[in-house]
C-alpha cells in the first residue's frame, strides 16, 4: 500500500501531462494545417481561374481552327461540283453547310457579291473585312451591325473557283457569339463568372462578370474600384492582347478576376471568382480538418481515459491482492500467536483475548450463559521423568485429543504445560453436564488401561460474577477436587 499510492499519483499526473501535450500538439497542428490550407487554396484558386480562362479560350481557338479547316474542305467540295445555275449553286452551298456543320457559309466573288444558300447580295459595305481578304491567309473579325447578334466572322481567300464566269475571291462563315458562349458555359455551380471582352473592354458575350461588373464595359465598371495605375495597366493589357489579373473589393466582398487573350480574335476571356467562395472553400477544408482533429482528440482522450481506467483497475486489483496477502499473513501471524504449536489448539494468549472479550460482554449483560472447564493432565511429570520428554509431549497431545473429542462444541485452550481450559457457550453450554460425565467415565476407564488421565473441573457464570476469572477460579477448585478423586482411583497425580 505504501508503494501503490505514489504509483497511482504518478500515473494520473503523467496521464494529464500526456493529454495536455497531445491536445496542444493537435491544436498547433490544426493551426499549421489551416494556414497551409489557406495559402494552398489561394494559390490554387489563381491557378484555377487561369485554368478556367485558358480552357474556355482554348475551346474558342479550337472552334475557330476547326471552322477554318472545314471552310477549306467546303471550297474543295464546291470546286469539284459542277453547278450550272444559281439554284444548283445555292443547293451546293446548302449541302456543304449541313455536311460540314458550317454556320452561314458564304462565297464572295471579285465584285464583292456574296452567295449564301438562300441569298445573293452586294456585301462590300456589310462585310468590310472583305477588302483585306487578298492580303491575309486568315481573317478573324468581330461584327455587330445594326442590332443584330454579335458575330465572329472567319474568312479565307480562295482561288480557282468561278461561277458564271466570275471568279470567287473569298469565303467566310459567321459564328453567332451567343452560340459560342453556350459552349463555354461549364457547370461549376455558379462559383465563377466569365465574359468575353473586346479590346476596349466592351462585353461581347452578354454574360455577367459577377454582380459588380455585370454586363458593363469592364473598364467603365472598374473605374473607382481599382487604382488608376492598375486600371491603366490592365487597359494596356487588353489593348496589347496580354493576360493578367485584377483584384478589387466592393464593400466587404473581395473579387478576383483573371483574363487571357484569345489568339487572333482581339478578345479577352475573363473569369471572375468572389473571394468569399474561396474563403468558403477554405472554411470547408478547415472545418473538415477541425472535425478530423476533434475526432482525433476525442479518440485520444477516450483512449487515455480507457487506459487510465484499466490502469486504475489494475492498480486496485494489485492493491487488493497485496492487502489480501497482508491480511493472510496477519492472520497466519495471529494464528501463530494464538495457537499452541504442539497440540494445535489455541494457547494461553488466545484464552486471555477470549477472556477479555467475554468479560466485556459480562459487563454489558449481553452474556448470561458461559462455563469454563479446566483440565489438568495427571502423571505428566512421571512420564517425563520416566519415559522422557517425547513421551511427555505425546501424553500432552493425547490429553488434548481426548478433550477436543469430548468438547467438540467448546473452545479448547492449552493454558499451561499440562493445563487445558474449555470455554462453553450456546450448545456446548447446554450439553456441558453430559459431556462432563462421559469425559469422566472415559478417564476412569483410562486409569485402568494406563491411558491418558485428565482431571477436569467446571463452573458456570453466576449472577454475582463480574468476570470469567471468577468462574475460572471455581472451576480450578473443582478440578483439584477431581484430581484427588482420581488419585484415589489409582491415577498418578503428578
Amino acid at each position: 500500500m505504501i508503494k501503490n499510492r505514489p504509483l497511482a499519483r504518478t500515473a494520473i499526473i503523467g496521464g494529464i501531462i500526456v493529454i495536455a501535450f497531445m491536445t496542444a500538439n493537435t491544436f498547433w497542428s490544426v493551426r499549421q494545417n489551416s494556414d497551409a490550407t489557406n495559402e494552398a487554396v489561394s494559390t490554387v484558386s489563381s491557378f484555377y481561374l487561369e485554368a478556367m480562362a485558358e480552357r474556355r479560350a482554348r475551346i474558342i481557338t479550337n472552334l475557330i481552327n476547326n471552322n477554318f479547316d472545314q471552310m477549306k474542305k467546303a471550297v474543295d467540295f464546291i470546286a469539284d461540283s459542277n453547278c450550272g445555275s444559281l439554284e444548283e449553286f445555292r443547293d451546293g452551298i446548302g449541302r456543304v453547310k449541313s455536311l460540314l456543320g458550317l454556320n452561314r457559309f458564304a462565297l464572295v466573288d471579285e465584285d464583292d457579291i456574296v452567295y449564301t444558300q438562300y441569298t445573293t447580295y452586294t456585301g462590300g459595305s456589310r462585310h468590310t473585312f472583305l477588302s483585306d481578304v487578298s492580303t491575309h491567309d486568315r481573317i478573324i473579325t468581330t461584327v455587330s451591325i445594326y442590332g443584330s447578334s454579335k458575330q465572329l466572322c472567319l474568312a479565307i481567300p480562295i482561288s480557282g473557283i468561278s461561277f458564271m464566269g466570275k471568279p470567287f475571291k473569298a469565303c467566310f462563315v459567321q459564328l453567332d457569339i451567343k452560340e459560342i458562349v453556350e459552349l463555354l458555359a461549364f457547370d461549376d455551380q455558379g462559383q465563377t463568372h466569365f465574359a468575353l471582352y473586346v479590346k476596349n473592354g466592351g462585353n461581347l458575350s452578354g454574360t455577367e462578370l459577377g454582380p459588380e461588373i455585370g454586363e458593363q464595359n469592364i473598364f467603365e465598371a472598374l473605374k473607382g474600384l481599382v487604382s488608376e495605375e492598375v486600371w491603366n495597366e490592365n487597359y494596356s493589357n487588353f489593348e496589347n492582347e496580354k493576360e493578367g489579373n485584377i483584384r478589387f473589393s466592393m464593400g466587404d466582398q473581395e473579387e478576383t478576376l483573371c483574363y487571357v487573350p484569345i489568339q487572333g480574335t482581339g478578345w479577352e476571356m475573363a473569369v471572375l471568382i468572389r473571394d468569399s467562395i474561396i474563403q468558403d472553400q477554405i472554411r470547408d477544408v478547415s472545418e473538415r480538418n477541425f472535425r478530423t482533429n476533434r475526432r482525433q482528440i476525442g479518440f485520444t482522450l477516450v483512449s487515455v481515459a480507457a487506459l487510465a481506467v484499466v490502469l486504475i483497475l489494475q492498480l486496485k486489483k494489485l492493491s487488493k491482492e497485496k492487502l489480501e496477502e497482508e491480511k493472510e499473513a496477519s492472520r497466519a501471524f495471529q494464528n501463530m500467536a494464538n495457537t499452541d504449536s504442539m497440540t494445535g489448539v489455541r494457547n494461553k494468549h488466545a484464552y486471555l483475548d477470549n477472556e477479555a472479550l467475554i468479560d466485556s460482554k459480562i459487563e454489558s449483560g449481553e452474556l448470561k450463559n458461559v462455563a469454563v472447564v479446566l483440565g489438568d493432565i495427571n502423571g505428566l511429570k512421571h512420564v517425563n521423568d520416566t519415559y522422557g520428554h517425547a513421551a511427555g509431549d505425546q501424553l500432552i497431545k493425547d490429553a488434548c485429543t481426548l478433550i477436543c473429542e469430548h468438547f467438540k462444541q467448546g473452545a479448547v485452550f492449552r493454558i499451561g504445560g499440562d493445563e487445558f481450559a474449555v470455554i462453553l457457550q450456546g450448545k456446548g453450554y447446554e450439553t456441558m453436564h453430559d459431556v462432563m460425565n462421559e469425559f469422566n467415565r472415559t478417564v476412569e476407564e483410562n486409569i485402568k488401561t494406563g491411558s491418558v488421565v485428565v482431571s477436569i473441573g467446571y463452573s458456570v457464570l453466576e449472577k454475582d460474577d463480574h468476570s470469567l476469572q471468577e468462574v475460572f477460579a471455581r472451576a480450578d477448585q473443582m478440578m483439584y477436587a477431581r484430581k484427588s478423586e482420581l488419585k484415589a482411583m489409582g491415577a498418578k497425580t503428578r
Partner: protein
Amino acid sequence: MLHKRIVKTGGAMITAAAMVFLAACASSQNQGNAGLTGSPDSSEQILKNEYPQGKTDNVRSAVDFDHELDRYEPKKDHYDLYFTYKTVHPWWDAVALGMEEAQRQFLDKGIVITYEYMAPNGASAVDQTKRLLEAAEKGYDVIGVDVADEAVISPILDTLIEDGKKVMTFSSSDAKEGCKRIAYVGNTHNYQDGVDLTEALCKKLDYKGKVAILVGSVGAPCHEDRARGAADTISKYNGMEIVATEYDMDSVDLAYELTLNILKDHPDLDGIICCNMSNPVGAARAIKEKKSNAVVVGMDHDEEALRYLNEGVIYCLGVQDCYSIGFDTIMIAVKIADGNAPGDLFPELTDEITTVIYQEDAALMLELLYGDIL
C-alpha cells in the same frame, strides 16, 4: 415557389404594361401610316413636344427588332425574289438584316425564300434600269426596287407591270405618283422628316441664321422630298436663309468636300440640313475639322454619325426603322407573289417610323445598333 410565381406574374404584367406603353409611344411617334398595324396619329407632335430631348423609351422604340410573321398562309413552299436598291451602303445593310429575319421565319414554317439583293457602288438610274430589265427575264416571283430616280424608273416599272411582272417598291424611295407598282414598304414621310429636322434646327438657332442643305442622289425621291421639306420650312422664317444646296451622291467623302467648300464660302454658316445617311457624316467631319459652330441636323443611323451626335458635333438625327422595312418587305413580297393586291392583307403604302434623337440618346442608340465593340 408561390412567391416566385407571383413575382414572375407581376413582372410579366409590369413588362406587358411597359410594352403597351412603349408601343403607344412608338405609334404616337409615327408620321403617317405606321408599319403594318399603325394608323395616322395626330398626337405625334404633342408627344414630341413632351419629350423634346428624347428619352430612353424613345430610343428603344426607334428600331423594332421584335417581329413575327402574320397569319397569312403562303400558297407555295418556295419563292424566288429580286431586290435592287440605290447604292451599296450600310443603310441598306440594315434593311437586309430585317429581310433575313423574315426569310428565316418563313424557313421555320417550311417555306423557302431565295432572293437577290443587289445594288451598284454608286446610285445610278441607268444601272438600276439595266438590273430591272435583266431581272424581268429571270422569272422572279416578285421584283422589288428602291427607286433611284422616280422619273426614270417609274416608267420602267409600269412596263414591267404591263408585262405581267409583279413589282413593288421598298425602303427609302417609292416611284412617282401614278406608277402602277403594286405596293411600297418604307418611309412615306420623307418630306415630313425634312420638315422635322429643319424645325429642330431653326428652334436651336432661335429662327435666325444662314443654313445649307446637303442632299443625296439627284432625283432620289426620299432625298429630294426631305430637301423640299427643309426648304419649305426655312422659307417660313424670315430670319432664316438658305445659302447653299448641294448633292453628295450618297458619298461621305463628297459630303465632306462639299461642306468644306460651303464653309469656305460662308464662314458664318449657322447650320446644315443633311437629307441622307452620308450627308451628316461628311458634314460633321468638316465641321469638326474647321471648328465651325454650325449646327448639323441629319438622317439615319450611321455609326460615325451617332458618335458625332454623342460628341455634340451633330445636333440631332432622324433614325429610320430599317429593320422593320426589311422584314415587312419580304412579308409583303410573298403576298404579292401569291397574286394578292393591296387591301385587307397589306396596305399599298406600308409606312415605317422615323425617330428624331439627340445627344443624350446617342450612347444608347450606339449600344443598341452596334454594340460596344470598337
